[in-house]
């Protein structure tokens, strides 16, 4: 198993800075997902690691070896492309074996690898077909097969599931997870779909504007987002953001609308600045209907509308000049109207400085 280390990687396209001094450490056997909206630089970073694009500054190490100056074929990587990039005039078998034949790998070895990959990905029956005769999911598996057959140590995947329909995507996600576990390969995966990222990754690098906003395991990203952007990007339905200011009343508090929310149990990272502006983030599942006698972090809000989502119902409330949503069970949400008292689970909140957008 091989790791990848990226240091100080920068790249610009003309006046546009696509990557700004990226540092990333991918441990051997990791499944790292580069997640972000379009234009954030995730594909650029992947291409830079692959060596398909030149970089302006920085270095890439694969397996401890500096490969920054090397051609993609000399880096020990394999890649799966968004459009699969299968060779249209060749059969599946030739698609899989072409690269090996060009490298003069012995015929018996080629046949062994092709057989192994066909078995692993269940594409044995497709070997004599051409890509145009395959379905989207089958082409995808052939593309993965072509990457596997090269027996690289690091696999780079560029939005491989985005051309598939939703059902197929779910199936292929499971396939990929299974492959990762059985092969123990190091994988770097690009996607804009945060559900894919959350389900597949061992660690996720959330990117925006050429920078990595946070690089952590999925649960850390979800429960303790480092920036406002990450908090809003990860998780669906999205996190609630309430604006207010910090205050002190024997213990730190947040003053939001007309309420005072106690913050004594909140693990502040930075120094507490009384009077400073604050954004309080809380996920809808951590907002519930308050018990009648409850005290502490309880607010009063006006029911706006109800969105049934199947297993849960998302209910929107007007809270002063702001809105807040709560994830309730369909039974508790039924017939809800008018003024309601909501309880906020203080142990699950995230506080952000609105100017720096960083977690407090």
């Amino acid at each position: 198993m091989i790791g990848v280390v990226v240091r100080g990687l920068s790249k610009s396209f003309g006046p546009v800075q696509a990557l700004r001094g990226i540092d990333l450490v991918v441990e051997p056997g990791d499944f790292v997902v580069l997640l972000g909206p379009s234009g954030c630089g995730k594909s650029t970073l992947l291409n830079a690691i692959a060596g398909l694009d030149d970089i302006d500054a920085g270095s890439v190490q694969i397996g401890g070896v500096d490969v920054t100056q090397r051609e993609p074929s000399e880096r020990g990587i394999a890649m799966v492309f968004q459009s699969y990039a299968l060779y249209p005039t060749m059969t599946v078998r030739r698609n899989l074996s072409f690269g090996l034949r060009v490298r003069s790998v012995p015929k018996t070895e080629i046949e062994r690898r092709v057989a192994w990959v066909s078995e692993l990905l269940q594409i044995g029956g497709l070997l004599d077909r051409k890509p145009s005769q395959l379905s989207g999911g089958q082409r995808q598996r052939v593309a993965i097969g072509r990457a596997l057959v090269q027996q690289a140590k690091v696999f780079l995947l560029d939005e491989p599931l985005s051309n598939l329909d939703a059902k197929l995507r779910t199936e292929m996600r499971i396939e990929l997870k299974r492959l990762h576990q059985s092969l123990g390969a190091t994988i770097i995966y690009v996607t804009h779909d945060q559900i894919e990222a959350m389900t597949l990754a061992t660690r996720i690098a959330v990117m925006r504007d050429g920078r990595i906003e946070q690089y952590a395991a999925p649960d850390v990203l979800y429960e303790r987002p480092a920036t406002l952007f990450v908090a809003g990007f990860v998780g669906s339905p999205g996190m609630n953001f309430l604006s207010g200011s910090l205050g002190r009343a024997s213990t730190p508090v947040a003053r939001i609308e007309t309420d005072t929310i106690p913050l004594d149990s909140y693990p502040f990272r930075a120094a507490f600045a009384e009077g400073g502006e604050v954004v309080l983030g809380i996920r809808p599942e951590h907002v519930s209907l308050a018990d009648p006698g409850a005290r502490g972090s309880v607010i009063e809000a006006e029911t706006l509308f109800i969105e049934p989502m199947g297993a849960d119902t998302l209910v929107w409330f007007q809270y002063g000049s702001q809105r807040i949503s709560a994830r309730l069970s369909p039974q508790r949400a039924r017939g809800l109207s008018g003024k309601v008292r909501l309880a906020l689970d203080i142990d699950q909140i995230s506080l952000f400085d609105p100017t720096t957008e960083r977690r407090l």
Partner: protein
Amino acid sequence: MSALTAPARIGRFGLYAFLIATALFFAIPLLVVISTSLKSLDEIRDFSIFVPPSSPHFSAWWKAWHAACTGLDCGGVHVGFWNSVRILIPSVTLSVLAGALNGYALSHWKVRGADLILLALLLGAFIPYQVILYPLVKITSTIGIYSSLPGIIAVHILFGLPVMTLLFRNFYAGLPDQLVKAARVDGAGFWRIFASVMLPLSVNILIVATILQTTGIWNDYLLGLIFAGRENQPMTVQLNAIATTSTGEIEYNVNMAAALLTALPPLLLYFASGRFFVRGITAGAVKG
């Protein structure tokens, strides 16, 4: 991946060397013709045509324009030039218009047998002139337009129909049909939609079609030779007659000047129109 490796640099050098050599292959014949047309006959006799002129002058050009001889007539190619112009303008205008209307009719209006029509046009585009030449002569002389200006114009329009129709049809078929449907819901009819919806969007394809037809018709030889009539012989026909007259000493400089004068209009059009020309010839070649 930074600077090129040594073998890659040699490869790159070889690439450019081949391209430049090929560029010379393409350019030299024209340059030779230009340079010889600027020489005097003595210079042509004594030196090779690949040598540039020592004191270039345009007298051969003047003679070609005003006094070159085809057989007994010595009026120069300016006669042919104006003939070609008189043939060109109506032919191009009418064949482009016909192609546009036909293409529009075939692409956005339900016409029974449209596919058959398109196939017939496609085949028609490939039929060599020689196959229908004699019958066409018979038809045009029966109508009374054989060997006349209307005759050659009609023939050019005829032979332009398949390519022009296919060109415009493919273009209009690529426009969203919601445009026409919306206009029809608003109550516009066939002609109204053509004038208000299609034409404004057609500027590029009109340019391409005009360039294609202009180049093709100006450069035509066979049809002009047969259908235009003695008083309307286009420049290409006159040029060939001048160049193949073998009475006395061959005035290469005059012949080459005549060739250049004939080549100049489409050549200038080519340099001026860039990508439109390329689109024209590739579209004309691929024909949908």
